[in-house]
């Protein structure tokens, strides 16, 4: 049973009462919320997320709770609460969905050290994964979105969740937050993914979430093994340039930007070294997405 098998009214009843138990990739989450607008958008985005049994034990118990309920709508607020901790100040109610997304990211990044959490997009064909580590602004999210549009499935856009024992990336299909100018660029280039509303002037600028496609949800239980690492860098009018990266450079770039590389200690060092040594890695400079994707397909073989 998944979220869409509940009507909006049923979802609201559960979420504002006993709470719903959901499975986001490897994480079990209890969600309670009394904000029907947030829940409606949540239902639309996460339509194929599995509902878990009522007594499932969860990693996080998250509340999206309305505040200033009797104030005019524009003054109403929402608060993110995980197990009694409040990582952020309250947000305007209209920004409940991005707050949930950032809040869940915060939970994973600060508390889930049983995984190595790399900062990268991960997409796959069946169980063969392409890893896209990148600095903010390099066009990683946009490229990830276009890869989905051309038949790849999404494991994650923000967290490369690497299982240290299974040596595989674990899927957690979540919306891809496009920021600022990439929003218009993606629309202009005819991206077909469904998306949520535009949030203006958030702490990360303008944000618009692209929702994962059905294909990605269909394979949300299938781990993928890393077959290719590409460091994308978008540059206007640049011609396509693909160059092999040396393992020591790959190691540095993978780990410098990881969320908990230091925290995981020795096990993460071995895992990252293995990834850098064994997985072919390329620097990928591009301006035209289609050509970049065609080249990636070639490299994957």
């Amino acid at each position, binding site marked *: 049973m998944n979220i869409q098998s509940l009507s909006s009214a049923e979802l609201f009843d559960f979420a504002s009462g006993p709470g719903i138990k959901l499975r986001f990739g490897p994480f*079990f989450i209890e969600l309670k919320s009394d904000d029907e607008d947030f829940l409606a958008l949540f239902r639309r985005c996460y339509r194929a997320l599995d509902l878990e049994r009522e*007594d*499932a*034990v969860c*990693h996080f*118990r998250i509340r999206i709770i309305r505040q200033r309920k009797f104030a005019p709508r524009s003054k109403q607020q929402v608060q993110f609460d995980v197990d*009694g901790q409040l990582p952020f100040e309250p947000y305007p109610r209209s920004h409940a969905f991005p707050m949930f997304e950032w809040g869940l990211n915060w939970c994973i990044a600060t*508390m889930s*050290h*049983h995984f190595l959490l790399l900062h990268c997009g991960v997409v796959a064909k069946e169980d063969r994964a392409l890893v896209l580590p990148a600095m903010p602004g390099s066009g990683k999210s946009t490229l990830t979105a276009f890869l989905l549009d051309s038949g790849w499935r999404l494991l994650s856009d923000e967290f490369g969740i690497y299982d240290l024992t299974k040596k595989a990336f674990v899927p957690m299909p979540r919306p891809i937050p496009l920021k600022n100018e990439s929003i218009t660029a993606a629309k202009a280039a005819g991206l077909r993914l469904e998306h949520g509303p535009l949030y203006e002037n958030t702490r990360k600028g303008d944000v618009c979430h692209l929702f994962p496609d059905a294909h990605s949800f269909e394979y949300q239980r299938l781990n993928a093994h890393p077959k290719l690492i590409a460091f994308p860098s978008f540059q206007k009018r640049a011609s396509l340039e693909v160059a092999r990266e040396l393992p020591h450079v790959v190691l540095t770039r993978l780990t410098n930007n990881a969320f908990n590389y230091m925290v995981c200690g020795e096990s993460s060092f071995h895992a990252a070294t293995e990834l850098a040594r064994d997985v072919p890695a390329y620097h990928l400079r591009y301006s035209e997405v289609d050509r970049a994707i065609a080249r990636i397909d070639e490299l994957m073989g």
Partner: protein
Amino acid sequence: MEQLAKIFENPSSLNFSDGDFWNAALNQARKAGVMAKLEAHLRSHELWESAPTTAQETMQGSSIYVGFIQQRVRYELSLLERHLGDLPFPIVLLKGAAYIACDARPSVGRGVRDIDILVEKRCIPAIEARLLELGWTTAEELSVYDEYYYRELSHELPPLRHPDFQFELDVHHDLIPPTMRIGTRTSEMFGSTVSIPGTCFHCLTKEDQLIHSAAHLMTSESLVNGLRDLLDMSALLLEVKETDASLEGLFARARKFGLETPLLDSLIACDRHLGTNVVLPTTEEYLSRSRVRRVTAWIIDGVVFPKNSQRKLKAALASTMMWWKTQYLRMPFWQLLKHAAVKKLFLPIINRRPT
């Protein structure tokens, strides 16, 4: 806190397949900051395997983080040794940093937020001058009143920060504030500190660590880390028991510093909620003998171990009483009045920015 307390008190009696029980226990462990301690506790009772996978993963996530923090503490202590190692007086590590440096029982699953050290009051100018010279600065900008407060009414310097250090450094010259109603100067504890092998640092004896932890807990305003501190004490007690020291000796020592009541209250709480089973002659006897002990036990129940079904009113009343009890203990009434007036009325007015 019912579920979590049950795991710590008597884990073998529990039905571990109850999902609601686990959700409540994990929620409480997260709030109380004892998630990694929970893992250690279950492992020591050979019950780790009975915990559900998601609960195991949640606890492991915290344990890995605590492991990282402890490694960082050891590293920063080695850096600190380079800063302070040649000073001609003993530097005593307190609480978390001491447990970790000594690899003592309470360090299992124990995180820390800052590094606490203790030196004799006469050594404060020397250590402060050295730290400032090496680039340590006060963590927050201090008002003239803050400066007065730390120098005259407090038992520590303002918290210090250094760019090479992740943790703040709290330099104490006493274990309790000089304004406290109970307790006397603890400088005598310096006579019996123990050198920590392989470092330039010292630590208090196990008995004194226990007395300090109890005094700290019973004079802190919110009891936020109440459960963690009680678990520390419970582990320290096991260590004390392993030596030849007797409980009578422990209480005699506490009495010497005027800290018998906080020790007694803490041990009663350990006894009632953590199954520590040590208070002599018996907890019941103590409680039946003194109304004050009963009230304190009630407050600790309400603040540290609130029952799920318990009315919010009781929890609120207990924390209010705790606050007043702490304030009463911390400074004489007129001083408290002055402190509150300056902090709450005067400073906000003079600091108000023109609009």
